[in-house]
């Protein structure tokens, strides 16, 4: 009833292959973008932007990156955190070596470093599959983390061992460093995230996206149909790591201002993996939903007790958060193993036939 595409006829393959072939989806997307670009900046306060919207967008982008690899190409990775770190450190080095170049450009370029390293660690994927591959990506995680600690050149020999983002301007507006306003950061992060999400959606509906899914669904059949397994997987690793690298660079430049090696630890990898799984493997919108859930839930948990007048220590809250997040993950896996994206599809189906059950 509310979501019925009856009467929307496609007269060309072009319109049938559009990103949002159904009118309601196009309207919905336009509304979401309008909210993101206009309503949120007008209404949100600094806290909402810095603690919720910016991290949410950063994590969404990282989840898209991992989703390319795990959700679309079927290669399980536990090294996302480290690949994000590569992006962050690369962007930091670049901007300190060339202070005059636009920092956003460097954030986008830093992804290529991450892509290269991701592709190197993707090489074993030709021979190693499934859980075994997950363990080899742990090698990447721990090795890169070690590099972030042991190679002082990477953090310009800072005594603290952390990278601190310098002040950088774009078109006269400060976008990074401690003085940047949340609004400026928000626009940069939103712009990059939407831009990359749009490009990757294009790739996913074309030949390359299809070849990833072929490898994921049945690698032997894919190979017998002319897909080169190594090339295809390496490409997925590179593209995925590129996106994660950009997300990692955004994380430190437009959100945290400073990052230590532990910011990009295995826990970050797991967090992103949760987002992808709960959001729905192989779904771009799922990446956003998953990121929203995993990031916003703990933030809310922190504020609920004080909001209802309970005095609980900060540590206890953290322990409870762990418990609740763990429990909810299990709960959602049991309820819908295909994630929020599938729940949304089911909801759409219900809307389509409403008010009738079928």
């Amino acid at each position, binding site marked *: 009833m509310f979501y019925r595409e009856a009467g929307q006829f496609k007269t060309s393959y072009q319109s049938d292959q559009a990103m949002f072939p159904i009118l309601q989806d196009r309207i919905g997307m336009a509304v979401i973008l309008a909210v993101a670009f206009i309503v949120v900046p007008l209404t949100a306060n600094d806290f909402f932007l810095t603690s919720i919207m910016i991290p949410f967008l950063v994590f969404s982008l990282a989840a898209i990156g991992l989703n390319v690899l795990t959700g679309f190409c079927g290669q399980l990775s536990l090294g996302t955190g480290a690949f994000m770190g590569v992006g962050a450190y690369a962007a930091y080095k670049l901007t300190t070596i060339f202070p005059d170049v636009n920092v956003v450009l460097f954030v986008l370029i830093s992804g290529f470093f991450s892509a290269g390293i991701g592709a190197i660690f993707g090489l*074993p994927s030709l021979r190693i599959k499934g859980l075994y591959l*997950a363990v080899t990506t742990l090698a990447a995680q721990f090795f890169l983390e070690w590099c972030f600690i042991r190679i002082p050149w990477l953090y310009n020999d800072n005594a603290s061992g952390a990278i601190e983002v310098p002040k950088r301007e774009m078109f006269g507006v400060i976008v990074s460093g401690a003085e940047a306003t949340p609004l400026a950061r928000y626009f940069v992060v939103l712009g990059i995230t939407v831009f990359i999400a749009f490009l990757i959606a294009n790739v996913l509906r074309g030949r390359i996206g299809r070849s990833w899914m072929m490898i994921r669904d049945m690698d032997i059949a894919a190979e017998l149909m002319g897909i080169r397994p190594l090339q295809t997987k390496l490409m997925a690793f590179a593209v995925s790591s590129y996106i994660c690298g950009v997300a990692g660079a955004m994380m430190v430049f437009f959100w945290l201002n400073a990052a230590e090696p532990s910011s990009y630890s295995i826990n970050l990898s797991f967090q992103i993996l949760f987002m992808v*799984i709960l959001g729905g493997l192989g779904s771009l919108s799922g990446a956003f939903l998953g990121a929203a859930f995993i990031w916003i839930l703990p933030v809310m948990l922190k504020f609920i007790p004080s909001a209802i007048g309970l005095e609980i220590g900060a540590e206890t809250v953290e322990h409870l958060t762990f418990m609740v997040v763990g429990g909810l993950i299990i709960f959602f896996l049991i309820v819908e*193993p295909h994630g929020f994206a599938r729940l949304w599809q089911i909801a759409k189906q219900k809307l389509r036939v409403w008010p009738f059950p079928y």
Partner: protein
Amino acid sequence: MLYDIFVDPFVQMYQMPDFFLQVLWEGFVAGILYALIALGFVLIFKASGVFNFAQGIMVVFAGLTLVGLHENGVPAFVALGLTIVVMGVLAYGIERVVMRPLVNQPDIILLMATIGLTYFLIGFGEFIFGGEPKRMIAEELWLPTGSTAFEFGERGLVILQHIDIAAAVIAIIMVAALGIFFNKTRIGRALRAVADDHQAALSVGISLNQIWAIVWFAAGLVALATGIMWGARSDVSFALEIVAFKALPVLILGGFTSIPGAIIGGLIIGFGEKIGELYWGGLVGGGIESWLAYIIALIFLLFRPQGLFGEKIIERV
């Protein structure tokens, strides 16, 4: 440089055999502990095909429960008994709440569920017992704590901690017991049947739920033993979690389903890591222990994707 890499470490090994032996012993003990964690993984993977990420946390959780109970005035051996009961309840709970509803889901979903379980157990354990490290009650459990030095004439001496020897002995007893359990008992046979084919096992009247609860309980007991041994060497805290990841390369080397594989894999990783760190680690600034195990496993996988004891995989279409 080349000298430092290819010659010098071996010269040192020859010149200071006591130090080398000490390193080997350290590697051996570390290897035993890795192997014990890996053993817990193997038990569950064999019976349900679930890659139980929470095994490392179960080790900490068991240790914490034991110490926590004792801190609250429960006598050591009563606490041990109670901890076993807790692990049993945990096993039953996991089977009931997590595994049963997720039967027949893809591997990755089950893996994620165990990671969720990991988070839950971390939060739960810290919530109840607090996050600070705790001392293991080794003496109270009549575990030896002294050390013995072996002398080699003028060439120096090697010090063996008694707790390490005890750990090795307990590990051997546990592996033997599991071997007998798997091969000689009715439940062991049912377990192997379940491992081979869930549906076929169901069709001959084996209760999957019961078998899984038993397996998770067995893994819990292994975790408890590991927790005691490990806790006695360092402290009981969730910092052990990162070390528990080391069980993964061990599994890769030994194969996900082989008990002897877990032991041998554990020893290889233990030896490799200690020798690598002490003789080669200094060349790149030290701390390579954190990733060396994974790199060893990675290189190994490139040449033998099926693991040490796995059969060559013939792909079929």
